[in-house]
């Protein structure tokens, strides 16, 4: 039974696209078949983070409008064979997406994949509402920072009212994924702590991704961080998050300030 997951946040720049790529790849690396779908029409970037930017022929809009078949628009990852990308259009705008058309594409994707991960655009407008519209579950990407937490709260409200599931009176499963977490700054009280965020948002925690150079390094070369350096701290945090998505119970590893930055980068390979 396929699961449709929206990766959303409200605020821009918190790590939605990075997280979509990393979680999608992590699930695929575990043998699940995965499609990652870019809903950021007009400003697509998931193709770039996945390293498929040179291979885009057709996109979500072409499929929604019936110009191309779904299987013609899907791009297979060159590294993991059960990972596929449905890119967004770079030249159209979000009005080209229709509710009914998106519903059709998502229904089609459900028949082909175990997981469909929808990378939402920032904001709370059409693109973002359509990305979440048909989702069963949501990953709310949040930075330990006041404006990000506030926007996440707003998005949670929309998930509970504007999705098909919510309209049917069902509950959409929500997880918060904390990204760019810096334990040193959190310990100094310069950054919201994990407990603060969870208490305010009151939804379960999917994972804590530490702030790391590995994330930038992976996007530079066009590879999800879980594929680029599977042993790095952010990759391991994403792998754990992916396992939690599949229902496994795994102890939450809170990045601590006791080790220096280089130690965290180079050490802790034993696990």
């Amino acid at each position, binding site marked *: 039974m396929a699961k449709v997951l929206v990766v959303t946040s409200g605020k821009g720049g918190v790590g939605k696209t990075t997280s979509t790529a990393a979680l999608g790849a992590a699930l695929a690396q575990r043998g699940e078949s995965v499609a990652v779908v870019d809903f950021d029409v007009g400003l697509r970037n998931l193709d770039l983070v996945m390293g498929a930017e*040179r291979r885009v022929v057709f996109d979500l809009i072409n499929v929604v409008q019936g110009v191309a078949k779904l299987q013609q628009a899907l791009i297979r990852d060159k590294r993991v064979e059960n990972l596929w990308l449905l890119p967004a259009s770079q030249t159209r705008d979000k009005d080209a997406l229709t509710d009914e058309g998106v519903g059709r594409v998502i229904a089609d994707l459900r028949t082909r994949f175990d997981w469909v991960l929808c990378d939402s655009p920032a904001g709370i407008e059409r693109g973002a509402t359509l990305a979440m519209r048909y989702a069963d579950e949501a990953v709310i990407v949040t930075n330990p920072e006041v404006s990000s937490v506030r926007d996440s709260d707003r998005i949670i409200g929309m998930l509970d009212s504007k999705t098909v599931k919510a309209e049917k009176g069902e509950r959409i499963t929500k997880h918060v994924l904390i990204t760019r977490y810096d334990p040193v700054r959190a310990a100094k009280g310069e950054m919201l702590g994990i407990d603060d965020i969870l208490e305010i948002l009151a939804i379960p925690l999917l994972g804590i991704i530490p702030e790391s150079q590995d994330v930038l*390094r992976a996007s530079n070369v*066009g590879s999800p961080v879980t594929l680029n350096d599977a042993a790095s701290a952010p990759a391991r945090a994403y792998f754990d998050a992916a396992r939690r998505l599949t229902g496994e119970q795994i102890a939450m590893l809170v990045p601590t300030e006791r080790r220096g930055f280089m130690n965290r980068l180079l050490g802790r390979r034993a696990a």
Partner: protein
Amino acid sequence: MSINLLRLFGGRNATAPVARERLQILLAHERGLLGQPDLLVTLREEILAVVSRHIQLDPDKVTVKLDRGKTVSTLEVDIEVPNGFETVVRGGRRAAG
């Protein structure tokens, strides 16, 4: 400058030059495509229209692949034609006769 800084702090082989080259290739294409947004869609449709004048096509058996390179790009149109296919022209004549 930025590369030197990366080497200084990163130590490991710097990835910024890779990012720079990827962006240069991508943006060169995207800037060139402004004003004719659906060039590939148009190309595909016109190629298929020409071919289907002669051969009956199953649209599901057509794949279009693209690889953008620094100096050249390849557009690969792969059309599966069944063995012993009936051409449209011949079929039309038979029907008429």
